[in-house]
């Protein structure tokens, strides 16, 4: 094989990493390098240093250490049966790229993952070595996210969590059955066991650090995971149920949904189609409703809705249209929980409404200034000077509020 340059490797190994949706660099411990030693800092909320034309944030240098892999997961561009070009970075090359990018303010840090070479432990040890070199040798204070190889030994996991801000495992597919058929070498039980282990370690270190700030932190930014949407036949209800269970069992910060997108040299087992971006978007909205709006999965998708989210309208509007008897709601008297369920109101506008109405009775015009738009909202609320007509009872309301289909790719 001809010798690959660092540039060649970067090309291959960033291309191979792009199917992971996560690029978050938020909510870790706060650090800086004010002492004049080391490099870098972290802020509370993380920074997106650039955006690609796919709309995704570029916050971290997201690469694979190598895309050689002994596993053959059907949905993955790096599966061993694919003919994609292979490359492998040395630990030093990744460290140098990270530092050079960081010093120029291109990135918040590193998100490192890898194909599995030799053994899970060997691979994990290489990932840990990158993080350790950055932290110990170069005093790197930026953000590090390491992907965990599910069956790596507890000792390596502990070291990974010590150097990284976040350690995570991807669940990949919503059901165990599809994981078994699409990723024969990955043991679904290993994946959930690894997440369970991470949760215990994260909690333990939090408890220790509450006692003394000198206690070592373990993955202080918590854990997240990714589920691929549209590669198997799982319904939205199955996906959201799975997420609820993941949030509940493992205290995840985020579940990322990634619309399955065609990969170069794809397997014939997979759908050859455009990625279901709108479906992915609706899943994020539904996920959001369960986390910040007090909805249960069983309310978002119930027996009247079927087990797929409506693609034409957002899940909150869909819910409201199924529960028209609860509307219109008087914004001058309704409680917070009910207001959060009004289509067109988010936690921020609800807070502003609650603040404002202590001072004056709200008119429609006021609400218009507090919320993003009145178009949908006005059909569901009552204000001092406004009450929607019969529209709410009309079946045409859904049609009326559903946005016209539009081209996504216009530039």
């Amino acid at each position: 094989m001809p010798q690959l340059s660092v540039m060649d490797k970067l090309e291959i190994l960033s291309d191979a990493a792009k199917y992971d949706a996560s690029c978050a660099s938020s909510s870790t411990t706060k650090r800086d390098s004010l002492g004049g030693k080391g490099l870098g800092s972290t802020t509370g909320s993380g920074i997106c240093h650039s955006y690609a034309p796919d709309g995704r944030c570029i916050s971290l240098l997201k690469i694979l250490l190598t895309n050689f892999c002994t596993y053959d997961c059907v949905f993955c561009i790096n599966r061993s049966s694919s003919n994609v070009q292979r490359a492998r970075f040395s630990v030093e090359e990744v460290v140098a790229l990270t530092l050079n990018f960081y010093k120029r303010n291109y990135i918040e840090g590193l998100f490192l993952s890898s194909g599995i070479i030799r053994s899970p432990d060997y691979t994990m040890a290489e990932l840990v070595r990158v993080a350790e070199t950055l932290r110990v040798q170069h005093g790197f204070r930026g953000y590090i996210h390491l992907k965990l190889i599910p069956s790596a030994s507890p000792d390596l996991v502990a070291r990974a969590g010590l150097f990284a801000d976040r350690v995570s495992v991807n669940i990949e597919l919503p059901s165990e059955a599809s994981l078994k058929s699409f990723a024969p070498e990955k043991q679904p039980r290993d994946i959930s066991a690894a997440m369970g282990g991470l949760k215990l370690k994260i909690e333990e270190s939090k408890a220790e650090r509450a006692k003394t700030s000198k206690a070592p932190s373990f993955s202080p930014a918590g854990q997240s995971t990714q589920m691929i949407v549209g590669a198997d036949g799982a319904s939205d209800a199955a996906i959201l149920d799975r997420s609820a269970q993941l949030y509940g069992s493992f205290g995840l910060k985020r579940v990322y949904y990634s619309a399955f997108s065609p990969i170069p040299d794809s397997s014939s087992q997979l759908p050859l189609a455009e990625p279901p971006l709108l479906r992915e978007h609706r899943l994020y909205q539904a996920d959001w409703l369960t986390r910040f709006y007090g909805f249960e999965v069983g309310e978002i998708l119930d027996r009247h809705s079927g087990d797929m989210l409506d693609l034409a309208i957002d899940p909150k509007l869909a819910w409201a249209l199924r529960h028209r008897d609860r509307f219109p709601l008087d914004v001058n008297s309704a409680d917070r929980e009910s207001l959060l369920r009004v289509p067109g109101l988010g936690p921020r506008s609800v807070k502003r409404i609650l603040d404002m109405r202590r001072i004056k009775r709200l008119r429609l015009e006021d609400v218009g200034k507090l919320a993003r738009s009145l178009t949908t909202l006005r059909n569901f609320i009552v204000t001092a000077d406004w009450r929607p007509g019969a529209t709410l009872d009309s079946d045409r309301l859904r049609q009326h509020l559903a946005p016209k289909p539009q081209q996504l790719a216009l530039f």
Partner: protein
Amino acid sequence: MRVAQLAGEADFAGWREQARLLAGQGVPAAEVVWQVGGQAADLFAEAPASNGAVETRALRVPAAFPALAEQVICHSDPQRFSLLYRLLLRLQDEPQLLKVATDPDVHRADAMARSVRRDMHKMTAFVRFREVTDEDGGEAFIAWFEPEHFIVERVASFFVKRFAAMRWSILTPHRSLHWDGAQLHVLPGASQAQAPTEDAMEAYWRTYYANIFNPARLKVKAMKAEMPVKYWRNLPEASLIAPLIAGASRRAQEMVMTAPTHPPERHLRQAARSDTGQDEAREAQQRGEAPVASWAEAAAAARICTRCDLYCHATQTVFGEGPLSAPVMFVGEQPGDQEDLAGKPFVGPAGQLFDRAMAQAGLDRSRAYVTNAVKHFKFQLRGKRRIHQKPNAGEVKACRFWLGLERDFVKPQLVVALGATALHALTGHSGSLMSMRDRDLSLDDGTRLLATVHPSYLLRLPDPEAKQREMARFIADLDRVGEVVPALRLAA
């Protein structure tokens, strides 16, 4: 007309001083002209009387106002000074004014502050340093940046904290920042010509940018919303955007159209080597269709158990643990939240209570084998909490398969049922536990059996007195275990 002179575009201290003076004298907003630096003065204007000759009134503002004003003052809108001054005056009569988000002045000020905060955040994101060699041959970095508002000084601390050990300058049209490794110098604006034009790393950065982009998911509007076009001219990666978009649909189409290829040699060799036979054997074992030769095989097969539905939501199978030569086997109900996460039995609160009781009864926990009637955690999700649920008869029956294998391989002299579920799993007895407690029982194969409560029962008792009484009784039960099997006692 009164003229208020400010030292700089974002001169908050100056604005505050002047505004206090003017407002103290009750000068209406419409009569003040705000001027920055050496701009030409309004011909009809007179300067504010700055000596204390005029009586001034005390000014009151809510705590939120100075913070808001500090942000608004950085905005590029020339009207910002008079807007803030008008707000200051109005606040004297309307102390709640800032909470009225619908008021035109408040609305405008909020929007300006938001725009300033966003510009500050974008500056931390979009500054791009280029490397130069400084006078002593060391590495130094220079960036050229064009913010929308007068924010440079306010963002300086971010760069100082992050790049304290480097030497760097950020040049902007209005102000420049220089960090010499120890101190920050704020200097006048500069021009782009003073900044370096290239950096060798930019080729790598552009390669990264081009390759991290997924052409199958074009979302240009989303990109532009977060990375407004006005910032593009100073981003080395931005020139790639147009060609990447132009080529995207072709590349995505190609991926869809290309026929799957044959796997490479390496893969075929590896597939031939790998052995899926073991997985199949475990499958057959867990279905009960193939013999299980050892405890280790049983534990491995149980990992992939699907004999009942409990595996679907639990994290993992929690098999029994302890020496295979253990004289006593304790059987609980099912793993709890902590056991489920750790994959080990009796490690949660109930397990810890069990450990304490064992120690108090003088028994050696490490010589006992502990397991559960059901090997997966059964729970109901309430929000983010997992609430324990009792396994039903079908689940207990399905899982008895594993309990039977554990008994076969451990062959204890005595089995202790902790709680009704364990007793039910071991004997089929579905009546009350209490009637069986204190009795010498035996299993179908003649193994001796004792029954007592599950330690979680003790945890749930609300009344401290009852708790103490029941704990004593539990320890007494364990003591009987020691009588039956003295080998389990701790060496004195």
